[in-house]
C-alpha cells in the first residue's frame, strides 16, 4: 500500500470484492481491487489531484451500495426522467429496479440490458478494458465493487431508435454508501446510438458515486452520450468516461453537473485509429463550498484525428472549479486538429476557478488550440440588455442562463434537453443572487 490516505473502507471493499468467487465478474473485481490497494487514494501531491482534495472520501467508511438495499419514490425520480420514448433502466444502489425498467424493441443483434442479465464473457473484450486502471484509483475502486451495470451494444449499420436512458440512483441516509455504476457502450461499424445517464443521489449521508462509462466505437459509428448529475448537496461524485475509437467514428459526450459537494468528471479518449473524432462538453453549476473538477486526457495516437473540449463553470459562493485538459499528440499523429476551451463565470468574491491547459505535442503538423477565460459578467452585455428595458436583475439572470445555455444546446438527446431547461433555470435562480 503506497499511501498514507488509507481508510477503514478498504477492508470492507476488499471483502466485498472477494465474495461470490465463482461469479462471472469476480476476476475483474479482483483486478480492480489489486490496483485500488496498490494506488490508494490520491493526495494533493499528485499533480492530477492538486485542486480536488479527496481526504474526506478517504476518511469516510463506506458501505457498498448493494449491501444497503433502497428504494426511490416517484417524486425523487421525476427530475431525472424526460418525455418521449426511451429504453430505460433504473438502478438503485446497484440493484435494477425492475418496475421502472422498460426496454423497447431493438434491432437484431442489439443489446440494451443490465449486466446481470447477460453473460459478461460476451463483452469481456471491452468491459473493464476501455477505462484504464493505471493512475486511476477511482476506476479501480469502481471495478473492485462491480456487480451490476448496463451494456449497450449497437451492431453493424444498425440504429437504436430511441435514446437509451440509464438512471443511477445512490441512496444513503444514516451511513454513507459507495455506489459503483458502470455502463459499457459498444458501437460497431456504422452503428448509431444515443445514451443518456442520469445520476441522482439521495440522503443526508456523504455518499460516494464512482461512475465509470466505457465507450468503444468502430468505423463510421456515432455515439451521443449525455450525463446529468443531480447529486444531493452532501453527495460526492467521481466519474470517468473512457472512450476508445478502434475505427474512425464520432463520439460526443456532454456532462451537466448540477449538484454535489465534490464532483470530479474525468474524460479520457484514446483515438487509436486515423480520422477519429470526439467532442466532450461540460457545464457545472457550483455553489456553497462545492468543488467541481473536470479533468481530460485526449490521446491522439493516429493521424487526422480531431478532438473538441468545451467546458464551462458557473461558480457562486465559495465554490471551486478546476479544469485540466491534456491533449497528447503522438509523433505519428500528423494533421491532428484539437481545440480546447474552458470558460468560468464567477458570481461571487469568494469562488475560485483554476484552469490548466496541457498540450503534449510530438507531431509537427498539427493544429492544437486552447483558450480559457475566468471572469465576471461582461458589463457591455449587461448594459446592452438593460438598454432594451430589461432590469439589472433579470439581465444578470439572462446572462447566466445564456452562459449555461451554450452547453445545454450541446446535449444530444432532444427530449433530455427540453427537460433540462426548466431544471437548469431553477438551479440558476439560486445562484448569483
Amino acid at each position, binding site marked *: 500500500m503506497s499511501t498514507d490516505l488509507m481508510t477503514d473502507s478498504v477492508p470492507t471493499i476488499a471483502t466485498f470484492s472477494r465474495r461470490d468467487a465463482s461469479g462471472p465478474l469476480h476476476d475483474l473485481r479482483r483486478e480492480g481491487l489489486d490496483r485500488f490497494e496498490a494506488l490508494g487514494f490520491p493526495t494533493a501531491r499528485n499533480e492530477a489531484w492538486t485542486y480536488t482534495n479527496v481526504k474526506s472520501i478517504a476518511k469516510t467508511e463506506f458501505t457498498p451500495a448493494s449491501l444497503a438495499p433502497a428504494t426511490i419514490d416517484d417524486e425523487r425520480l421525476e427530475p431525472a426522467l424526460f418525455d418521449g420514448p426511451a429504453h430505460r433502466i433504473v438502478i438503485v444502489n446497484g440493484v435494477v429496479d425492475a418496475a421502472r425498467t422498460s426496454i423497447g424493441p431493438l434491432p437484431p443483434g442489439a443489446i440494451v440490458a443490465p449486466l446481470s442479465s447477460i453473460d459478461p464473457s460476451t463483452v469481456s473484450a471491452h468491459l473493464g478494458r476501455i477505462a484504464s486502471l493505471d493512475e486511476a484509483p477511482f476506476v479501480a475502486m469502481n471495478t473492485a465493487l462491480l456487480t451490476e451495470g448496463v451494456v449497450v451494444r449497437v451492431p453493424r449499420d444498425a440504429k437504436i431508435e430511441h435514446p437509451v436512458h440509464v438512471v443511477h440512483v445512490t441512496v444513503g441516509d444514516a451511513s454513507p454508501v459507495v455506489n459503483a455504476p458502470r455502463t459499457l457502450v459498444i458501437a460497431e461499424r456504422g452503428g448509431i446510438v444515443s445514451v443518456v445517464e442520469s445520476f441522482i443521489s439521495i440522503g443526508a449521508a456523504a455518499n460516494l458515486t464512482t461512475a465509470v462509462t466505457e465507450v468503444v466505437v468502430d468505423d463510421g459509428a456515432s455515439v451521443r452520450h449525455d450525463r446529468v448529475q443531480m447529486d444531493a448537496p452532501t453527495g460526492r461524485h467521481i466519474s470517468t468516461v473512457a472512450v476508445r475509437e478502434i475505427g474512425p467514428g464520432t463520439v460526443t459526450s456532454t456532462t451537466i453537473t448540477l449538484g454535489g459537494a465534490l464532483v470530479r468528471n474525468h474524460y479520457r479518449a484514446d483515438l487509436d485509429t486515423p480520422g477519429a473524432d470526439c467532442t466532450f462538453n461540460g457545464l457545472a453549476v457550483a455553489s456553497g463550498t462545492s468543488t467541481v473538477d473536470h479533468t481530460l486526457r485526449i490521446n491522439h495516437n493516429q493521424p487526422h484525428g480531431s478532438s473538441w473540449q468545451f467546458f464551462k463553470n458557473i461558480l457562486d459562493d465559495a465554490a471551486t472549479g478546476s479544469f485540466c485538459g491534456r491533449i497528447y499528440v503522438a509523433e505519428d499523429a500528423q494533421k491532428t486538429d484539437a481545440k480546447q476551451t474552458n470558460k468560468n463565470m464567477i458570481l461571487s468574491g469568494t469562488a475560485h476557478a483554476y484552469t490548466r491547459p496541457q498540450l503534449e505535442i510530438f507531431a509537427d503538423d498539427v493544429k492544437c488550440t486552447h483558450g480559457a477565460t475566468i471572469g465576471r459578467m*461582461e458589463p*457591455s*452585455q449587461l*448594459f*446592452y*440588455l*438593460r*438598454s*432594451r*428595458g*430589461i*432590469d*439589472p436583475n*433579470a*439581465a444578470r439572470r*439572462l*446572462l447566466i*442562463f*445564456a*452562459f*449555461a*445555455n*451554450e452547453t445545454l*444546446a450541446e446535449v444530444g438527446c432532444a427530449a433530455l434537453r427540453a427537460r433540462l431547461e426548466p431544471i437548469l433555470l431553477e438551479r440558476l435562480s439560486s445562484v448569483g443572487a
Partner: protein
Amino acid sequence: MKNPMLDIRNLHASVDGTEILKGVNLTVNAGEVHSIMGPNGSGKSTLARVLAGEEAYEVTAGEIIFKGRDLLELEAHERACEGIFMAFQYPVEIPGVSTKYFLKAALNAHRKHRGQPELDAYDFLALVKEMAAFVELDPALLDRAVNEGFSGGEKKRAEIFQMAILEPALGVLDETDSGLDIDALRIVADGVNKLRGPDRAFVVITHYQRLLSYIVPDVVHVLLDGRIVKTGGKELALELEDKGYAWIDKDARAAASA
C-alpha cells in the same frame, strides 16, 4: 407651445475623469429628426451613451428632460421602458440567448412597465415575422444567438428590427451607417423612415452626410469638442460634406473669442 420631447440643457459629461461633453444644448420635438454630425472624438457617441444611461459616462452638470421627466434620475432599463432606444454603433454579441428570446424579454419588460399583459407566443411571433420583413432581416437569424456571427450589415439591421418591435418615442442612432454598404444603408434608412411619425423623434448621429441622403433630417447640428457649435437645416449636412469641419471650427473659435 407644446413641450419638447427631449430637452438637453448645458450638459457636461466625463469618462474616466476626462470631460467629453462641455455644455450641450439640444431640443428635439416629437415628429422631428435631428442629425448630430461631427468629427471623430467630438463627443457624438458620448452623447448617445449618456442618453441611454451607461454608467461609465458621468454627467457632471446640466440636465436632460425627456417627456417632461428628469431623465438622469432614471436607470438605463427605465429609460428604455420610457421610450428611449439607442441603436448601438457596435452591438455586442450574446452567445447562448436567441434574438427571439431576448426580444421577448425586452418587449415584455416594456409591456409590464406600461401595465400591459405579456404578449403571448403567437402574437409575439407574428410581430417578429412582420418586423423582420420590414427590415429585410432573414428570420432564421432570429433563432441564432443575439448578434452572434451576424455580418456588420445584419447587426445594424437587427438594431433597427429591435427598434421596430420596441416602438420607442425617441430613437438614437449611433453611427448606424458605419460599415454599411450602400444596399444595407438603404435598407436601414428605409426602416427608420417607415418608423417616422408625429409622435416619434430621432437623433441620428453620423460622421458622414451619406446616411442623411436617405434619412432626411429636419435639423442638423454640428458637435465640436463637446459643444454644439452650429445648427442648420438639411443643407448644412451637404455643406459639411463639401467643406469638412475645419471652417466651422474656425467660425466657432472666432465666435468664442469675440
